């Protein structure tokens, strides 16, 4: 019950974070300032010191927490002190907690409310992290200047530095270890990789070096923190008159080891100029296959480098696709797929195209028909018989909250197109009133506009059903996603030639060539049942398989 009053204030605090805050103002220690103004000195005094604080590179940072193992997050549980709330108050009562152990807090999220005589004070967190322990219950007196909550701090900026050291580690450690092993046998040469690899092909595999770029991250990192080295190594480096910051370390976290120093010296002494890989250790056991592979791979062989992530924002088209498909997620799809025999259509199309090419149409007219106009027309004809496929679902019609179907008179068939800018679905309007030629002309117009990116919003809107001809690129079956505000979509696969038995009576044993194409329908199962879809699909199939049927329906 005490948790019932979690937060208007926390939401308000979150909103207030958007306003400009002057952290300087908050850190001023006015005697009656709010409780969050903990002076940083008191807090850092309680920070645990890491074991190795000798490294000069990290010495500038006040925190000396460093990782020497592969844990991702820094586990530092920090006891947070109750700040002075002024007026000489030494203790105050905790009225209520806004968090519990295990709760995640951000910087500035409210932790608790305390009260001292007349003032009720909201205490917010200085850190982001996870609450580990509450020192007081609600109702108890909390002492000012003593810890009142433990927070497991995550994602400190210093921590990121330490983390930055870890990625190369999986690369360097095995090599480092193997370098130690292979030290005796290694024939480290100062030459560039390619001749090395070529040599390795013939010579002992363990003489190979791994591709250079895998080490360049290591190089960069260790170059920054090059003074990661034990005193013995440093001494050695000094003796040999070598600048330790120039040596790439191969030990844990990029530490410079003795062998690195020796190798570096050899590299320096030798005549040929080493690439950044010059000082790298050899890796025994890298097979010839890897060499072959790296020969194929580009010089920037990130194949063996660490996983890199680059953020690429979505393009306009991708964004639109993202939004649209996310909306389509609410539609329960079912897939209905069927094989359609295109043989007759193929013949018809061949004949028609001959006519078209001979007829000498003026420029700009369609010279050649593809299959798509026929399929689109067939779909439209099926829609006359099953108009429910042309409808859309309205979830909240007429303010009575019940869903309903909105039937639509025109068949506006969207055609999915793959353009240089991505997936676009322009719409062929009123297919019912168009003939094959005009459909083809419209398709051509839309296509040219799509390719140049000049489709108008008019062209893109108003679709009632969609056809996606992925078969032009490839594929047999597909499960297309229904476009928002529609209830069905047809995906057309690739046409292929298959052998089939003749259907001519008396010749059933004869094997013929048939052109087969797969139609994959997806429909909204909230309003379309399987039977309707099957029957409609059958109508389409029969028209496509016997295109002469269209002649019957000519107006």
């Amino acid at each position, binding site marked *: 019950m005490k948790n019932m009053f979690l937060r208007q204030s926390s939401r308000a605090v979150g909103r*207030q974070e958007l306003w400009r805050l002057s952290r300087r103002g908050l850190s001023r220690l006015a005697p009656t300032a709010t409780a969050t103004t903990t002076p940083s000195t008191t807090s850092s005094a309680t920070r645990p010191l890491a074991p190795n604080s000798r490294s000069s590179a990290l010495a500038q940072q006040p925190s000396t927490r460093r990782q020497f193992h592969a844990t991702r997050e820094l586990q530092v549980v920090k006891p947070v002190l109750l700040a002075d709330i002024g007026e000489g108050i030494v203790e105050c009562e905790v009225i209520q907690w806004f968090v519990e152990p295990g709760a995640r807090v951000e910087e500035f999220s409210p932790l608790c409310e305390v009260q001292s005589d007349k003032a009720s004070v909201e205490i917010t967190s200085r850190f982001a992290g996870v609450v580990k322990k509450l020192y007081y219950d609600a109702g108890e007196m909390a002492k000012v200047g003593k810890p009142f909550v433990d927070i497991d701090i995550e994602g400190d900026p210093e921590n990121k530095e330490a983390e930055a050291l870890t990625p190369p580690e999986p690369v360097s450690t095995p090599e480092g270890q193997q370098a130690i092993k292979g030290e005796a046998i290694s024939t480290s040469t100062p030459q560039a990789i390619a001749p090395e690899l070529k040599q390795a092909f013939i010579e002992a595999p363990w003489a190979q070096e791994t591709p250079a770029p895998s080490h360049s991250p290591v190089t960069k990192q260790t170059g920054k923190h090059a003074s990661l080295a034990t005193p013995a190594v440093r001494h050695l480096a000094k003796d040999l008159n070598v600048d330790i910051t120039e040596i790439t370390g191969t030990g844990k976290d990029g530490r410079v080891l003795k062998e690195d120093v020796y190798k570096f010296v050899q590299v320096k002494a030798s005549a040929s100029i080493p690439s950044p890989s010059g000082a790298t250790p050899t890796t025994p056991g890298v097979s010839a296959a890897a060499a072959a592979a790296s020969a194929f791979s580009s010089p920037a062989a990130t194949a063996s480098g660490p996983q890199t992530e680059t953020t690429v924002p979505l393009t306009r088209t991708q964004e639109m696709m993202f939004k649209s498909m996310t909306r389509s997620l609410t539609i329960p799809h079912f897939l209905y797929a069927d094989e359609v025999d295109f043989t007759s259509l193929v013949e018809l199309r061949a004949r028609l195209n001959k006519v078209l090419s001979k007829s000498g149409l003026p420029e700009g007219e369609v010279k050649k028909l593809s299959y798509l106009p026929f399929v689109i027309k067939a779909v439209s004809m099926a829609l006359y018989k099953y108009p429910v496929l042309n409808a859309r679902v309205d979830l909240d019609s007429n303010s009575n909250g019940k869903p309903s179907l909105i039937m639509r008179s025109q068949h506006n068939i969207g055609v999915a197109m793959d353009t240089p800018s991505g997936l676009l679905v322009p719409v062929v309007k009123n297919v019912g009133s168009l003939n094959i030629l005009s459909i083809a002309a419209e398709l051509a117009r839309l296509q040219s506009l799509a390719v140049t990116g000049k489709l108008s919003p008019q062209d893109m809107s108003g679709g009632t059903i969609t056809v996606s001809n992925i078969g032009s690129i490839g594929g047999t079956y597909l499960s297309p996603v229904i476009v928002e505000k529609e209830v069905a979509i047809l995906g057309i696969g690739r046409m292929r030639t298959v052998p089939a038995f003749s259907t001519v009576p008396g010749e059933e044993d004869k094997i013929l060539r048939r052109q087969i194409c797969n139609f994959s329908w997806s429909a909204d199962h909230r309003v379309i049942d399987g039977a309707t879809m099957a029957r409609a699909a059958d109508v389409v199939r029969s028209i496509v398989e016997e295109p002469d049927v269209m002649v019957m329906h000519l107006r």
Partner: protein
Amino acid sequence: MAALLLRSTTGGIRCLTKGPAFISTTTTTTISSRLGFSRLTKLRRSYSTTISQDLLNKKVQVYQSTSNDPYLNLSIEHHLLQHSHPDSYVLFLYINDPCVVIGRNQNPWLEVNLPALQETEDIKLVRRRSGGGTVFHDHGNVNWSVICPPAVFDRDRHAEMVVRALKDLGVTTAKVNERHDIVIAGDGRGNGKDVFKVSGSAYKLTRLRSLHHGTCLLNSPQLKNIGKFLRSPGEPYIKARGVESVRSPIRNVDVDTQEFNKRVVDEFLAMYEEQFGEDVTVERVGEDLKDMSNIRKGMDELTSIPWIYGQTPQFTFSSRPTEDDPRERPPLDLDVQSDFNIEFTLRHGEIQTANVSGLKYEGPATDKDFYDGMISKALAKGSDDESAVKLYEIKDWAAVLKSATAGQGLKVSDSSLNSLSEWLNKVFPGSHFR
């Protein structure tokens, strides 16, 4: 249509026009600053049906409430605290209907005479969000509230501002004491011995804003009764954590509320207007603000029983001195055994542990201890159990005690039960809230 209101620079004018002090068109007023020069400032005084973010971002904001609903006014205050711009200075003035207002962490059974409140029909019980002690509000009491950035927060700063306003009105002995209250001297002698409190303060400090609000007893008609309402019959028996009120003798300042409002606004503007020039707004707000969702939500919280009664920290109630609470108890006149003792510990207004002994039972009094134990257990179901006894739900202790003993095969004697219930009904009356 502008009217010009001129005011003299020093106090001394006690009888001034009553009635609405603000005209809803542009008014020009002369504001006397303490430095002695007058400035002619054009202030837009208007009535707002909502508090827009625009207003909340102004550097200097003055709001006066036309509503007397204490829950609404406190919600408006809270909304201003949370949503006004972090750099702004806000003054909010409001007058409440008669009500008793307890501090954020106080105990109503300890601080308030709940039976008395129940008898008088129209006095509300309010728990505010800031700390401090219990006060009584009515139409003769003006509440002033200042919200400012934490960097300039000082407990005395705005109390001094109100003192200046009072001095302007002729209350020459007004001053701020070490508890940050405003006091005036007694009957003219001013030797410091007879000081009377006229205003108490409380604070709420958040990360970005500091709120200081206080009362001011100007001309309360109920002055004599205030003490009655703030003395609880349960006080000798209840020991609470949380803040206890500090009693002070009180007195009316004897000044008109509208005049006081005007002066406080003037003083506030004098403090901050110079810095911020044009970025000032003076608004009147009222019942319309109930339509704002934040304020609505705030009111719902403030009027809820769990907030008013349930936000009480743990306390103990015992009829005899205990280790925690060794005070002498006044003698009880109940029809009970001589070793009678009743002890509760309560949290969030629910009985957590109970210990009852020494009731008079009917029939063979063979195993009184056992029966006492049964009652104790029945009363202390604990908060995990739905049927935990919630103090604020009890209409009549007789019923509670009866049900605690029901089905146990024992019966508390009627007179014992009645006398105990009568007493408990005084100490822990049921929910008063209307």
